[in-house]
């Protein structure tokens, strides 16, 4: 007889006693929630004993449960070590989830609008507890994910795991590589800083080159949401980054992993006969069961990898954040993200359509169909000399093309622009102008020249006095408003360039002074400036480097960096040298030297913490 009008737990207690009924109840809950393993089964597994029940309860979660339905119930013993897979595929999957979790957390504090996005970044960095850590983890994880996915691809190629029957698995992997790159690239824009805006502008400029013109132009408009990246573009990149691309990535990760399980992990090439695929037929003594061995090992790897990432982000890596995006000013030395440098390098080879669109597309299609082209049976390293050579050739080519994509390769900037940039540029790509870290107190107002450092320390006063004297008689030609040549004294010209309104210290009578001894860091900067001018002495003939520091407001100083030099005969951007290796200085019609000047400036605030970094 039931206690209640229907059978209940109370009856169990009545029949078996309280303790036993409770234990059996808990045991049943455990067995149901693990989809087949009760407490005894779990304890046996953890103790490393063989299962005592039949059918094997450790296979039940794979057969009946959702979470493990796509994980194989056992692996081949040869596949659980580091070689031959180096855990690269596992790590790629790890980063898919890692990026999803850190990304979702960042979304809590982010709004995709140009008016607030950058402010949100500052808020995440400065106000949100663990905000900076979360951003660093997300950014570092993204960089690692691109790297790991590429390495995974190289490994798969090396061990010829793309061969029959795994051709399609490889093809879905190539698609995953593409989505990984696109995800990383779309995420680049979201902080809405200068690096983001211009790196993405350069990347998106390539889309525009897609032939025919009408397709390229409209694709460009669709991606940017306008002729220019603005509010629409940011929103589109955001939506692609958090919805569209992750959706595709998850679907293809599923397809890819399903195929991996269907065919099983390919064994190391030397472990099976040529032309055989024995991965599915794992002898009983070679089986490593997922529960408990692989499961616990993976939990350990998740902990170790996450720990390493956190260590890196706490002590060694911080995601860069530059100045607020400014669609009107392009910073010098802008490049695409590192994993797209190879495309930028290819672009330098010639036609934008051929190298920016056709070449990457051909490469991608080649990777996609490669397993269907290479149908040779052997997976042994020794039998694959062509394949191996191709692999190394492609890796070398991509590496070299990435090098070609750097600003240093094949693009010449005027040496004067380059030097001024190195003196004063805002923090970009983890570096900043050498003038910026000089402590505010050492930036004594005054006009200083590199000439001072051409002689010994004792001669400094004399050299500067001589330059001041020379300035009175030094003049050259410029064009006036009506484009008529006009003789301008160098003194007036420099004063004009410095902008009198900004530089009360300069006033109408420009006089150089020696750098105060109390400013050792400014002296070091001036010496470096002098060395750089000397190194470019051929193009910058008789160059004078000038740094003028003026008070703008009580706590803000303006530093002007100028280079004045005599124009030399140029061919392209290189100076023409005579037989003695000397450049050929140019003169105006009236015999005065043809002078050139270039200026750049920066503002330094007393509370700016450049020098503390």
């Amino acid at each position, binding site marked *: 007889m039931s206690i209640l009008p229907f059978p209940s737990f109370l009856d169990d207690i009545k029949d078996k006693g309280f303790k036993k009924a409770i234990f059996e109840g808990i045991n049943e809950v455990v067995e149901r929630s693990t989809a087949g393993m009760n407490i005894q089964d779990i304890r046996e597994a953890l103790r490393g004993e063989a299962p005592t029940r039949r059918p094997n309860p450790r296979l039940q979660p794979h057969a009946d449960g959702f979470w493990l339905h796509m994980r194989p119930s056992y692996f081949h013993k040869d596949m659980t070590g580091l070689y031959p897979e180096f855990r690269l595929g596992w790590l790629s999957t790890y980063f898919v989830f890692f990026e999803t979790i850190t990304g979702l957390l960042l979304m809590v504090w982010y709004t995709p609008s140009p008016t607030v996005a950058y402010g949100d970044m500052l808020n995440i960095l400065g106000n949100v507890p663990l905000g900076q850590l979360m951003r660093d983890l997300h950014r570092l994880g993204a960089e690692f994910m691109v790297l790991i996915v590429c390495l995974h691809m190289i490994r798969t190629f090396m061990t010829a795991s793309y061969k029959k029957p795994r051709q399609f698995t490889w093809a879905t992997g190539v698609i995953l590589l593409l989505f990984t790159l696109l995800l990383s690239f779309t995420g680049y824009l979201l902080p809405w800083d200068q690096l983001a805006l211009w790196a993405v502008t350069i990347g998106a400029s390539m889309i525009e080159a897609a032939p025919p013109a009408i397709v390229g132009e409209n694709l460009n408009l669709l991606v940017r949401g*306008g*002729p*220019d990246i603005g509010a*629409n573009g940011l929103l589109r990149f955001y939506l692609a980054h958090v919805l569209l691309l992750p959706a595709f990535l998850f679907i293809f990760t599923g397809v890819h992993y399903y195929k991996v399980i269907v065919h099983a992990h390919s064994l190391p090439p030397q472990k099976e006969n040529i032309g055989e695929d024995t991965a599915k037929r794992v002898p009983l003594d070679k089986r490593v069961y997922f529960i408990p061995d692989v499961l616990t090992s993976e939990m350990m790897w998740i902990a170790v990898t996450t720990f390493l990432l956190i260590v890196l982000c706490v002590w060694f890596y911080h995601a860069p954040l530059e100045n607020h995006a400014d669609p009107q000013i392009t910073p010098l030395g802008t490049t695409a993200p590192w994993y797209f440098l190879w495309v930028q390098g290819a672009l330098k080879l010639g*036609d934008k359509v051929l190298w920016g669109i056709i070449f990457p597309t051909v490469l991608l299609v080649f990777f996609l169909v490669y397993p269907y082209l290479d149908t040779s049976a052997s997976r042994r390293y020794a039998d694959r000399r062509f394949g191996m050579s191709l692999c190394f050739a492609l890796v070398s080519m991509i590496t070299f093309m990435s090098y070609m994509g750097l600003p240093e390769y*094949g693009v010449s*900037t005027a040496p004067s*622009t380059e030097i001024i940039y190195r003196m004063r540029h805002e923090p970009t790509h983890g570096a900043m102008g050498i003038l910026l870290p000089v402590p505010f107190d050492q930036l004594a107002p005054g006009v200083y020249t590199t000439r001072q450092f051409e002689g010994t320390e004792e001669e400094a006063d004399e050299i500067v006095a001589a330059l001041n004297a020379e300035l009175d008689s030094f003049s050259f030609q410029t064009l006036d408003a009506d484009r008529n040549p006009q003789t301008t004294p160098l003194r007036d010209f420099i004063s004009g360039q410095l902008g009198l309104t900004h530089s009360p210290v300069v006033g109408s009578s420009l006089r150089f002074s020696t750098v105060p001894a109390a400013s050792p860091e400014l002296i070091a900067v001036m010496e470096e400036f002098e060395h750089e001018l000397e190194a470019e002495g051929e193009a910058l003939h008789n160059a004078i480097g000038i740094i003028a520091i003026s008070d703008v407001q009580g706590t803000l100083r303006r530093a002007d960096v100028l280079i004045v030099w005599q124009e030399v005969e140029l061919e392209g951007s290189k100076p023409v040298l005579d037989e003695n290796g000397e450049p050929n200085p140019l003169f105006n019609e009236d015999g005065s030297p043809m002078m050139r000047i270039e200026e750049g400036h920066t503002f330094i605030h007393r509370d700016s913490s450049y020098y503390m970094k």
Partner: protein
Amino acid sequence: MATAASAVVERAQKKQVVVEVAAPSRREFLYYIWGASIVLLLGEATAGLIWFALPRFKEGEFGGTFRFTGEDIPAAGDPPLAIPAGRFHVAHLEDDRLVTLYGVCTHLGCLPKWDEGTIRFRCPCHGSQFNGDGTWITGPAPRGLDRFRMTITFTDGEVITQETGAPVALNGREIASLAIDSSDKVIGPGQGVTL
């Protein structure tokens, strides 16, 4: 012998395996038509999606039309008028021609600045240089600056619509108004081309 004979039989049987395909029944045919209409619908949906997502342009915003009066236009030979909101420069050249230049470098999308000292545009990124009429001087840019189409209304009532984006000779006439369409740029002249 037996195996050879069976092989012959097998081969004969293989030859006989000719799948006879009946003419499509009404039901089968209607399924194909239905399938084709789904494909068509998907195509239409894609076209609709592109139409939906293409940006719209407004008057006075980048991508839309900009209007100027004669007074806004710089005098011949003056520095080009920079319109940051539209990312273009209106250049009134010394020989009294007018051209609208898209302010974005044809190399990799940076913004060249006008340098009055040397009378040219200089790109801060990779040092490309362009004349006042946008033609290429030097640097890695593949071509001169791109242009925008202009519609010029003169004070004498004549209206010129410049479809090619090439400089328009004003021949000393006064401009009443100028409309610049910044939605669609015209590819600039190649290296070495002077106009």
